[in-house]
């Protein structure tokens, strides 16, 4: 923890906070550029009722003041009231959905990283042999499949045709298919990263030195190589988070999981602007924080990297 690292940490943190602020500002002003009031779509409401509702939700004040209020409320964890699910606050709804999404997303991310690192290392160690080629073909195919194609094909095959697993998220074992659908793409991506990074490290001089002084093959791989191959995988943590969070929007809809992604798409259908803003800001903050953590971890793990 030297001064240079601390300076980097502070700089990176300020950058992350600035980005979060920008996301809040973009979200707020984009949503407020919509001419329609969130209440005007519903029929049988007089102008007086709409005005009363708007006053209740604070929509009648000038936009900059609304923005400052909104910002202040967010800092207190208050994302406003939902207009699509009357009687609920946005924060409650987000937390309710997030408990599902976090479970699926965390499991999927863990599976993706563990399996990806293992498969990638195997492919690199068996370079140009049959196993390597099989892994390469599979991962190339998997990264060419959008999440909705993966999820619907899995649903069709394992739930509808073979009847091995339930098709709905609320049934026992119902979260297995959503987790697999979310995990396959990042797993394939991590595998490719790990393969090339392992090949790169195995060609380094210190590996040759270790072999020359008689370290066993397993020792070379586990003690010397593996640790150094993990840095590219860490940098992928942020993008993986983004993939899993946005991917869960389609996957949760396909498997009817009451998570954050489904909540988000439903709030679009109900034109619940407070919800859309709240979820966007929440998801964006998660992604930005993950990127921040990954960047810091990257520098901690590999001190050779220049703290520019």
């Amino acid at each position, binding site marked *: 923890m030297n001064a240079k690292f601390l300076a980097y940490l502070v700089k990176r943190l300020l*950058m*992350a906070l*600035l*980005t979060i602020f*920008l*996301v809040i500002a*973009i*979200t707020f002003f*984009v*949503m407020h*550029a*919509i*001419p*329609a009031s969130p209440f005007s779509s519903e029929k049988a409401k007089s102008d007086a009722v709409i005005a009363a509702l708007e006053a209740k939700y604070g929509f009648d004040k000038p936009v900059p003041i609304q923005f400052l209020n909104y910002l202040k409320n967010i800092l207190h964890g208050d994302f406003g009231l939902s207009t699509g699910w009357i009687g609920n606050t946005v924060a409650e709804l987000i937390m309710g959905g997030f408990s599902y999404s976090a479970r699926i997303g965390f499991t999927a991310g863990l599976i993706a990283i563990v399996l990806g690192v293992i498969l990638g290392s195997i492919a690199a160690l068996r370079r140009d042999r049959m196993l390597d080629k099989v892994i390469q073909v599979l991962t*190339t*195919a998997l*990264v*060419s*499949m*959008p*999440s*909705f*194609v993966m999820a*619907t*094909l899995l*649903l*069709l095959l394992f739930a*509808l*045709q073979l009847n091995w697993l339930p098709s709905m998220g609320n049934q026992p074992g119902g979260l297995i298919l959503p987790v697999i659908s979310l995990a396959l793409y990042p797993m394939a991506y991590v595998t490719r990263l790990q393969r090339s990074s392992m090949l790169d490290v195995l060609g380094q001089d210190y590996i040759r030195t270790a072999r020359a002084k008689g370290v066993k093959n397993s020792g070379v791989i586990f003690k010397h190589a593996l640790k150094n191959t993990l840095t590219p995988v860490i940098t992928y943590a942020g993008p993986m988070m*983004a993939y899993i969070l*946005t991917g869960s*929007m*389609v996957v949760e*809809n*396909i498997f009817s999981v009451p998570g954050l992604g489904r909540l*988000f*798409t439903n709030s*679009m*259908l109900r034109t619940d602007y407070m919800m*859309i803003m709240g979820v*966007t800001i929440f*998801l*964006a903050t998660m*992604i*930005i924080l993950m*990127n921040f953590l990954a960047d810091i971890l990257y520098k901690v793990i590999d001190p050779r990297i220049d703290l520019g």
Partner: protein
Amino acid sequence: MTEKKMKNPLSLQIDPALFETASEEEKAQQVTMRESVSFMRDAMRRLRKNRIAMISLWVILLVALIAFIVPTFYPYTYTKQDVTAQNLGPFQYSAKEQMKIDKGMSVFPHIMGTDNLGRDYAIRVIYGTRISLLVGIFSALIVIVIGIIYGSISGYFGGRVDMVMMRIVDIIYSLPDVLIVILLSVAIKDWVSTSQNALIARLGAGMVSIFIVFGLLYWVSMARQVRGQILSIKKQEYVLASRAIGATPARIIRKHMIPNCVSVIIIIAAMQIPSAIFTESFLSFLGLGVSVPMPSLGSLASDARTALRSYPYQLIFPALSIFLIVLSFNLLGNGLRDAFDPKLRN
């Protein structure tokens, strides 16, 4: 005469009398040996040797040909509904069409069947493919134009201009792009549906917001790479060397800057295409993409979910198409990277 040479055998003084003129044949040999291979031609040669990349290229060209030519003469349109021919399987005929065939009239087969409104599915998949290709190509163009201009200005001026421009890029880079695409498409949905502009109304909110977001956000990695290339090439020893032997700036730009940037531009543009296609299909799947009745591979797959058990082929066809397109672009992108990245050259 030989006295001088005897004194110092290492003398560099040469005696023209000892030389003989080259024959025409020898001159010709020199000429052929001197023929240099330009960077582009060299890269294209390597690309042509890459079998997987070439197959992908041909697949893409074939798919593009089908997507743009077939609708001009195909007997069905993507909007024409036929209530007597709902949810037919591939190559099935409705009772009405069967009667026509029995009378000896010819009926064009529904190669991929029909959907729940009796629209021919093959032409809808073809139109969806066309949308995907258009999104991919236009987004690559947007990224190339903005990225190159921004990146080269930043790299060329350097110093404070570069610092400010790159800070902006850093911030844009850290914005979660897919979320912003979704946000924009939600926001401009109203505006698009009431728009007087026929093109915008036909494209739909998702498409318009995709293009806006590509214009605003997606060019940053291209700008970063181009700027990095220009900065690093400026400092390379071979640039210094060629300047030392009297190369003009024009020659340095032509021979060193452009070829090195071209590789990066081609590689990044090729990687951009599949990610753009992903984003469009994702939005269409969520119902934010193209406006009905225009089909997209994402919206076709989404519609197929309602009767997945009974008509699985309605999912399989669009799913396969998008997989084939993205896979081909990915493999071609890998091939281009191998062919154009000079660091990997043997």
